[in-house]
């Protein structure tokens, strides 16, 4: 009985040691991954910063104004002033679409017009 207890304890110690060893390595691995991720983040942040600076630099008001001046022939952009605003009633109301005059009725009765001389056979089919 006692030897069994010893055996189990020894096995448990070996097992725990293996587990601790593995955990240690996993932790170190995770730390390395984290460090490389941090470097990656830092690098990417640096690249984003470059893009942001470039975007801001290319869109700086001085340059945009120069571009507008250079391309005036194509764009015809001028500074917006009060004359560019309008009242809503300055816009013409769209004219109503042409509608069929239904109220007047459509003439459906009347003598059949003889357009050509060969309509005799169709007389019966014409319904009022």
């Amino acid at each position, binding site marked *: 009985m006692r030897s069994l207890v010893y055996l189990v304890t020894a096995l448990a110690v070996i097992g725990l040691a293996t587990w601790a060893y593995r955990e240690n390595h996993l932790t170190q691995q995770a730390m390395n991954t984290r460090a490389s991720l941090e470097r990656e983040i830092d690098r990417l942040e640096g690249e984003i910063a470059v893009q942001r600076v470039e975007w801001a630099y290319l869109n700086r008001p001085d340059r945009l104004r120069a571009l507008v001046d250079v391309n005036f022939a194509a764009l015809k952009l001028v500074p917006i002033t009060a*004359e560019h605003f309008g009242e809503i009633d300055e816009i013409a109301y769209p004219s109503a679409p042409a509608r069929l005059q239904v109220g007047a009725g459509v003439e459906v009765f009347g003598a059949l017009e003889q357009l050509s001389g060969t309509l005799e056979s169709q007389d019966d089919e014409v319904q009022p």
Partner: protein
Amino acid sequence: MIRTPLRPLARILKAREQGQDPACIEQENLRLRRQELRDTGRVRAEVRLLVLALIFLSGFVLLGARMGLLAATEPLELRVGMVENISGARADITDRNGRVLATNLATHALYAETRRMVDPERAAVELGRIFPEMDVARLAARFTDPDRRFVWVRTRLSPEQQQAVHDIGEPGLMFGPRKMRVYPNGRMAAHVLGGARFGEQGVRAAELLGVAGAELYFEDRLRDPARANQPLRLSLDLPIQATVTEVLSGGMTVLNARGASAVLMDAQTGEVLSLVSLPDFDPNDRPAPPTEGEPADSPLFNRAVQGYYELGSVMKAFAVAQALDEGEVTPDTTINTRGPLKWGRFEIEDFRDYGSEMSVTKVMVKSSNIGTARMMQEIGPDRQQAFLRRFGLLESAQIELSEAARARPLLPDPWSELSAMTISYGHGMTTSPVALAAGYASLVNGGRLVTPTLLRRDSVPEGAQVIHPGTSAQMRQILHRVVHEGTASFARIPGYPVGGKTGSADKPGPNGGYKEDAVLATFASVFPSHDPKYVLIVTLDEAVDTTGPEPRRTAGWTAVPMAAEITRRVAPLLGLRPVPLAEAESRLQADARAQ
């Protein structure tokens, strides 16, 4: 320890005499001894258990406390920039809509570890070829100095320069990563941003410190590692700042002015949308402070914030507002303006003779010094001082720039009756354009005190009531009439009714007195005049309009056309709808009558 014998002779002999079994005595003593042993062993075990429990308890407490601490602290994400305990982090600065005004760019510094250098002389010569401004002989001397192990060569390198240094192939030349401050818009808003420099340098990082302006004022906020990723949002609006700068610099050239400044402020919240001071500089390459000449002529000088000037007639608005607010006069009260007004040896005169009497409104419209001086005679210096103090005009302007607190208004000492009279038309006391903007905002926005700010605010606590809302409505009408009937006729812009007051102050000379032909022209305007949303202050230093037969220096010919052009261009950008003049005037009249 003396062991008690198991078989004490005395008791055994006694027992034998009485015919008892002496073995009983031995058994009894043995039992007592065992009992004693058991008791001491138990106590010892208990103590051990207690100690063990305490050790475990403290261990658990320690672990728990550490876990709690880890859970409670702010997660620190990046450690890359934090080596050597020098943080290169600095938050961005953006305008009110998130456009970048200042940010960081990765770059490298160049240093040399002399012990690792193979051929220091050649390295120095090659470096001299890449950087022509370097002193090759001095560099070589440093590289070969046996006492030196470490030499800083350059603080910043462009990628091309870095490649060129790589190509030298010298193993002792090393690159240290750096963050450098970049202002992508160049000179735009230079005086607000200020500039940055490197602080303490390490091999892996260098501190970025603010030098002036908002960079220096918000130093702690910008360098706070917890908020390094949140940009600092200013109240400036980049397109509007650009427009104001463009118009103002054009006007400065045409009018041959020494300097100019403009402040555009939200009349309700005090947010500064544009703050321009010309001449300006490039914060990416901030010039050194001037060592000679007048500091106020340096491009580094922020005229809008540091520039305290006698602003002249624009200050009449405060005198008239006080007279109206304290019930001394109404806009239609007649004031005696027969000139010159004598006070001791001093005479107060008007620019022209406007007749012997005028209404209070006319005093403003015609800008009569005698008129405001007479009103201030009634009020007196003490009440005037108290009134101006309420508007914050007797202290440094409260704006978030490092320069603001260092500049103070110049006040008369003692504040005599004569001082009160001259201050009523803007002489004898200095004011900065930014403080003036806040003062005008408070005058016209219904009478609530406005504190200027450079930070974007979503909501602003309502300021103290400094004048009655009724007085404010009267002031709006008076300022409107100054533009539409008086000295600021160039500010009539179709669609945007403007109210304002001109000021043309003689500049003080270096030896006391005032200079000839040197005028500081100011126009303080509010728009739209019937419902003021924005306040615009334009000042021009020694501007001259030479289009006429003789040079004209008054603000009506210099600062007013500038302000009008700025308003014409900026008002649509601010999203203001054009309003017919008649509608604005009927609204002004209704407001003034309602009170």
